[in-house]
């Protein structure tokens, strides 16, 4: 196991995370702006990544901005946004070649950081509003993207499950925004949301790569002079348990039906039972050796995929499967039976051991990717729990069948969502 050195430096404006590793041929820099989810601002925050990539005062069009990246030896840049539990996070990522492989590019770190600063701090604007034309155009882009979600059946079914299951909770707010908000968004009020983000959001900056801290840290401090005053902190969600199981079904023209089940775990990343939950989820559905894959797919040939995953910040477990519309009852019964089996202690030694090894492997694989390293440390920041990776491996190793059974009994089914074919009768127990 290679040591992963994570040096953290905090000041009033941001936390800087320097992670030195020889694994990569490039350096990765990420800026993460976060604040609690708010329905009122979500569409504007979803729109910001689109607008901010369309130009700055120095590079006034998307084309000029992208040509600058080409000039920086094909540096790869993106801005994206999404939910992290009940927070909304806007991430700027820049990945660029390590200058030791390009002898003629000695200023690459400095130039790349300056680029990132320019995009984040100096977007095309007059100081009070974004460029009107860009905003109009990007509202159209986001509108089209929201309208297209229904074309991606798995994503659509997942969104609808959360809508139904978490109705009234902040977590159900759509990270991609809402069509009905578009008319009220303009170049001025969007700029206001932007200023709130750069000045007041919690900010974490990550630098991952093969570098000398003595060289790189002063460059970062020199370039990233923000003068910001963060006034929000990321929030943790309150666990909730369901009172009864809801079933929702919906019909569309499609070949394959989607059966998605939502469970409440009541356990989030910072909780002591989190690793037990992870082992439970592994035995239940997250690997090819899991009960869902073996029973829904291999034994009964009902699906090509049937899997579960946990949402670590909200305390949910979600099951996904793609089945023939007429197999609803059979598939649902088999999925629920796998959960019952674990609750009743029907777990083999092999299942337990394989799952523990697979989780350890997955975690090691995560820290072999620069993006994975950033997410690994950011997860700890959001959950407020710092951990040592070696201790985590030991903790997983020590989990027992009883730990798993206990957690399995805590996990409760909340909502069954079924997206099925129009020309089919669907389930008959509604």
């Amino acid at each position, binding site marked *: 196991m*290679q040591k992963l050195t994570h040096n953290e430096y905090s000041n009033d404006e941001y936390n800087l995370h320097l992670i030195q590793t020889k*694994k*990569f*041929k*490039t350096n990765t820099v990420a800026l993460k702006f976060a604040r609690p989810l708010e329905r009122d601002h979500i569409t504007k925050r979803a729109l910001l990544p689109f607008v901010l990539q369309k130009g700055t005062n120095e590079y006034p*069009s*998307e*084309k000029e901005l*992208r*040509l600058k*990246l*080409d*000039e920086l*030896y*094909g540096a*790869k840049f993106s801005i994206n946004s999404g939910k992290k539990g009940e927070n909304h996070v806007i991430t700027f990522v820049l*990945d660029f*070649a*390590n200058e030791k*492989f*390009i002898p003629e590019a000695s200023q690459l770190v400095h130039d790349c950081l300056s680029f990132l600063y320019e995009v984040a701090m100096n977007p095309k604007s007059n100081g009070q509003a974004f460029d009107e034309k860009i905003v109009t155009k990007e509202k*159209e*882009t986001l509108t*089209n*993207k929201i*309208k*297209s979600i229904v*074309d*991606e*059946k798995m994503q659509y079914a997942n969104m609808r499950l959360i809508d139904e299951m978490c109705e009234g909770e902040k977590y159900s707010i759509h990270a991609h925004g809402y069509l009905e908000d578009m008319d009220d968004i303009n170049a001025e009020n969007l700029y206001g949301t932007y200023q709130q983000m750069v000045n007041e959001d919690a900010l974490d900056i990550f630098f991952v790569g093969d570098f000398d801290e003595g060289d790189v840290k002063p460059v970062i401090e020199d370039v990233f002079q923000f003068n910001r005053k963060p006034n929000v902190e990321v929030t943790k969600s309150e666990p909730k348990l369901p009172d009864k199981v809801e079933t929702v079904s919906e019909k*569309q*023209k499609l*070949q*394959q039906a989607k059966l998605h089940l939502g469970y409440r775990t009541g356990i989030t990343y910072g909780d002591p039972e989190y690793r037990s939950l992870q082992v439970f989820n592994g035995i239940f559905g997250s*690997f*090819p*050796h899991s009960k869902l894959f073996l029973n829904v*797919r*291999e034994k009964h*040939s*009902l*699906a*090509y*995929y049937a899997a579960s995953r946990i949402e670590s910040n909200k305390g949910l477990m979600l099951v996904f499967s*793609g*089945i*023939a519309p007429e197999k609803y009852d059979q598939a649902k019964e088999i999925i629920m039976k796998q959960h019952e089996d674990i609750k009743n202690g029907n777990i083999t030694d*092999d299942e337990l*051991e*394989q799952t523990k*090894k*697979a989780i*350890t*492997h997955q975690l*090691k*694989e995560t*820290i*072999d*990717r*620069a993006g994975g390293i950033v997410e690994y440390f950011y997860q700890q920041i959001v959950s407020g729990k710092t951990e040592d990776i070696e201790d985590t491996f030991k903790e997983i190793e020590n989990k027992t069948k009883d730990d798993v059974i206990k957690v399995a009994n805590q996990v409760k089914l909340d909502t069954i969502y079924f997206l099925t074919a129009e020309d089919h009768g669907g389930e008959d127990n509604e």
Partner: protein
Amino acid sequence: MNKIEIPRINESMYHKQLENGLDVFLYPKPEVEKTFAIFSTKYGSIDQTFTPIGETEKVSVPDGIAHFLEHKMFEKEDGDVFQHFSERGASANAFTSFTQTAYLFSSTTAEEQNVETLLNFVQDPYFTEETVEKEKGIIEQEIKMYDDQADWRLFFGTIGSLYENHPVRIDIAGTVDSIYDITHEDLYTCYHTFYHPSNMSMFVIGNFDHEKMFDLIQQNQNEKNFKEPNGIDRFYGDEADTVYKSLEKIYMPVQTPKCMVAVKEKADNLAQDQLLKNDLVRDILIDLYFSKSGSYYEELYQEGLVIDKLRLELYLEESFGFSAIGGSTTKPQEFGERVKVMLLKIKDEPIDQTEFDRAKKKKYGELIREFNELEGTANTIIHYHHLGIDYREVFELLENLTLDEVNQIIDDWISEDRISICMVLPEDEQ
């Protein structure tokens, strides 16, 4: 073993061809956690008509058989091979492309045992009537999942309009009808013909001892007997250089239409000694015009013909090749016509030296980035090895590439009778 240096990125790997013809590549990277291994045969969905090993008459097998065979390799008399990998915390998988079937795992412990399992399970087929029948329901669901995905339908619709007879036009998984025709005898015929070691490569990359690994692979292979290979005759049908259909429309229940414009390659441009350069130049050119820094992308975006980014595809293989530009669009007809016009005028609007130098810089940085990822590194090197090409040459080719050469290649690339347009349109427009 021969040590092979990759000087531009300070790395090296080892290669040797064993007596039975198997190509072994070992690429140690002690700085990462995991090991990734891929055991690949030069046999994909296009290899449907061939002379079976030891026979003289050619046969044609049902559509989707290479992919079906891939699924069935994992099942043995004593159960599922996934389990053996799972016991060691490794994760195994496989994929089938047009020209390749590959079996792979990643692990962070017991890499030698895992390599042995990988060799043994792929070299020990077990197909029965019963196991073959059972798989049909699973693959049927896989096909139906893809049938609901507009991007997938667009891609295969495009290829189907480019090619009239070449089997690349057939969906990799086949159709629901064709897979029900597959028998276990068919699987054995394909297996014995295409899974001969002389048609295969083993690539291991990551954290392992390359000497021990080589001894293990060599000994494992020495203990097995294979028939004398007699070369494989493959038949792809007669195919014109021009497209089969210049326009194809697919109607399906989508909210947002999609369009793709593709250029079919002349057979002459796929000659082995020209292929890597042709590939590199097309890649640079498509990027230069249609990536987000490209002038044509900017026009399409400003004219409201594309939502967000374009999908850029490039395939150059021994027996077929094409480039494609696609995207989601509210105006598919206009998109198709505009992109076609743009492609045709590339040769009349020469690029200047500044643009060309910048494009080279970008490509150089991207080549360095490719080596961040173990999977990508292995897949790329194997892909070109199957084409008889040493991928390391790409660095030198790029450095020495001149604008004159590019202009010559442009001249011979695109013509109107080799362009097809394919659209996915909402059903109610039919």
